């Protein structure tokens, strides 16, 4: 399971070296406070091929799998969770097109997917951070010459930088008949598309979340992805990938917090000895290490199964909940171990704690994940 191939080890090392070279603590503190997307680092990550490694090479991806993508996410977020997550989340959103789009759509829209020019926004939800999929408030009326879209979508990840949105809407026939939920491609420069900041979040502050407003937006009929009425189903099935990515980001976040805690307890002295010598410190570190390892096992397992097309449907929910909970708890304990310093921005773990909490909420809190798991585990009653 941990056995990495040579090329996986190379990818991992390259990501580690990149993060060491490009991420800067003071800059990170500033971007966090200013809620800025780390555009320059993003550009250089794109250039070096770290983003979109799971996409096929014909779409400028790396032709590898979610597992390799998870390895990169882990390394980048371990070094800096805020920068790492902003980077990794910037190229997500195109999954529905890749999986369910026609050949023509892919040829038209996907080249350049991972080269930074064209960023996708998955506009599936109408609530907020919890990302509950919904097509209730966005209506696409189907006319002879195209769809006419009106309505709002919320909390699109990196929606402000995207040039193409995949919008979950409810299609109505010209006569008002409901033709079910559909996924429709909308270009950002299209007239009638308004993009607003969704508001500042308590964590993941370098990732922008956007609300979209569509007012009489007209797109050709050929922008429909896959079959009519299948939109919700498609959108749901793409969430596995997002959940696994979030799990990988959270894994790196947890590991990064643990790294910092271990470094601190090994150098800090109290009552005449290093605090790493106190049993209670050691028990805490052990607990944290177990949680990080749980996150790793679930994340790797989910990503690998996904790549083999053998993903047990409950596993991506489990990975998401285990990994993000681990991140919250490990970062919390890291703050406590660092004491007063843990509460100071300079020592970073407070940012890991906030980011972890945001990751925990993104796409739905534990309660939401657990209801989905229960559905799979309990089955028909």
């Amino acid at each position, binding site marked *: 399971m941990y056995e990495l191939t040579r090329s996986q080890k190379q990818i991992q090392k390259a990501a580690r070296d990149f993060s060491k070279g490009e991420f800067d603590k003071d800059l990170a503190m500033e971007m966090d406070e200013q809620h800025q997307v780390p555009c320059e680092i993003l550009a250089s990550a794109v250039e070096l091929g770290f983003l979109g490694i799971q996409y096929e090479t014909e779409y400028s991806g790396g032709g590898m799998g979610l597992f390799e993508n998870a390895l990169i996410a882990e390394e980048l977020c371990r070094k800096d969770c805020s920068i790492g997550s902003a980077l990794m989340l910037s190229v997500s959103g195109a999954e529905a097109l890749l999986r369910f789009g026609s050949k023509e759509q892919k040829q038209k829209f996907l080249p350049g997917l991972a080269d930074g020019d064209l960023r996708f926004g998955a506009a599936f939800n109408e609530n907020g*951070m919890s990302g509950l999929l919904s097509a209730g408030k966005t209506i696409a009326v189907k006319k002879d010459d195209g769809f006419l879209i009106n309505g709002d979508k919320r909390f699109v990840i990196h929606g402000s930088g995207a040039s193409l949105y995949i919008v979950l809407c409810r299609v109505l026939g010209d006569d008002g008949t409901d033709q079910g939920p559909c996924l429709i491609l909308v270009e950002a420069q299209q007239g009638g598309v308004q993009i607003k900041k969704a508001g500042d979040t308590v964590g993941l502050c370098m990732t922008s979340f956007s609300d979209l407003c569509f007012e009489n937006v007209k797109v050709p009929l050929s922008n429909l992805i896959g079959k009519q009425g299948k939109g919700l189903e498609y959108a749901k099935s793409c969430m596995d990938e997002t959940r696994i990515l979030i799990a990988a980001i959270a894994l790196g976040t947890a590991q990064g917090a643990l790294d910092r805690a271990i470094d601190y307890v090994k150098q800090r002295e109290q009552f005449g000895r290093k605090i790493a010598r106190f049993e209670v410190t050691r028990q805490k570190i052990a607990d944290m290490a177990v949680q990080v390892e749980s996150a790793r096992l679930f994340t790797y397992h989910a990503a690998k199964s996904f790549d083999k097309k053998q993903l047990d449907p409950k596993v991506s929910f489990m990975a998401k909940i285990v990994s993000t909970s681990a991140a919250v708890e490990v970062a919390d304990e890291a703050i406590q171990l660092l004491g007063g310093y843990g*509460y100071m921005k300079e020592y970073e773990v407070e940012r890991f704690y906030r980011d972890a909490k945001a990751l925990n909420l993104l796409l739905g809190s534990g309660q939401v994940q657990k209801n989905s798991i229960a559905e799979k585990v309990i089955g028909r009653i």
Partner: protein
Amino acid sequence: MEILKYSEDHNRFRNRLRKLLEIEVAPHIDQWDKELLIPKPVWQKMGQEGFLCMSVAPEYGGQGLDFLYSVIVIEEVARINYFSFFIHLHSDIVVPYIDSYASHELKKKYLPGCVSGDIITAVAMTEPGAGSDLASIATTAVEEGDEIVLNGSKTFISNGVNCDLVVVAARNPQEENPYSAISLYLVEAGIPGFKKGKQLAKMGMHSQDTAELFFTNCRIPAKNILGQKGGGFLMLMEKLQQERLICAVGGIWSAKSILDYTLDYFKSRIGEEKSIARSQAAQFAFAEMSTQVSLGQTFVDNLVVRHMEKEQVVTETCMAKYWTTDLAKDIAGRCIDLLGDFGAMESCPVAKVYKDIRVMPIFAGTNEIMKGIIAKSLGF
């Protein structure tokens, strides 16, 4: 059976304070958080209205009121979720050192200003190398004639930017026994050799001005000592019961305040989003949190009574400090989860509190220190 017996006077005091906080404080919190400081006139306003140092005797400008008035102040500040407003640190933690241990002369000089809000106080114990471990304080105090020369640095000092007067713990370098080496001194801001560092950037509590303090050959009159020379450790120990109890009162009231907010928000949406408000899991979460708050409240109220009756409840206040502050932290996390889409937005009060109160299990002795003291009391 109400455990705390509030009189009509207490209730009037509470109502006046509540109104003042709603008008003079609550609307400005965002602004002050941005400016990283609470303007001094706010302190003075509080002082003028009698909401600072209520326990100080009329002789020194105070009102000589009981501890329940302090409890009311903490509760009401928690009610507006403004944990950066460290008036209890001033009124109920630092000023009592002066009140209990300073000479009549020093008291005459400083207490009236403390009461009026013209003098804001801080206490400087923690050092970069001495957090929980007070015995390793390195700041030195050397007698030279009728002066004391202070050298050293302090960190994480709350009210560190605003403060006009600081109680400084420093060691006599000639005394080897750490427990009889520490003395406490009153040091005025602005005197030569005393420099305030820049404000420390924190996760939350943004308008709580926390800073480093530096003493470089800082000379103060020898008579600025509090109590006996070398008595610092004992004085600190003696005041810890009240300090921790105050943290516990703050802890339980912040937990309660977060829970009340979330419950109200939730219930207000029952009509709108039935599926959420009808969630049995959410209802159970509220049931569990309400239970915890009730337990903590009963425990803390009982301790307040015992503290006021001058009982020794050192162990119990350690229990209360760690349990209530951990609880506040946990409840903030759970409430964020329950608030869902709104929970993680900066505009959500719970999200702000989540960042503010993370310091509670750390300050005034980490919760691990509390557990160590409790364990000792069990005979280990």
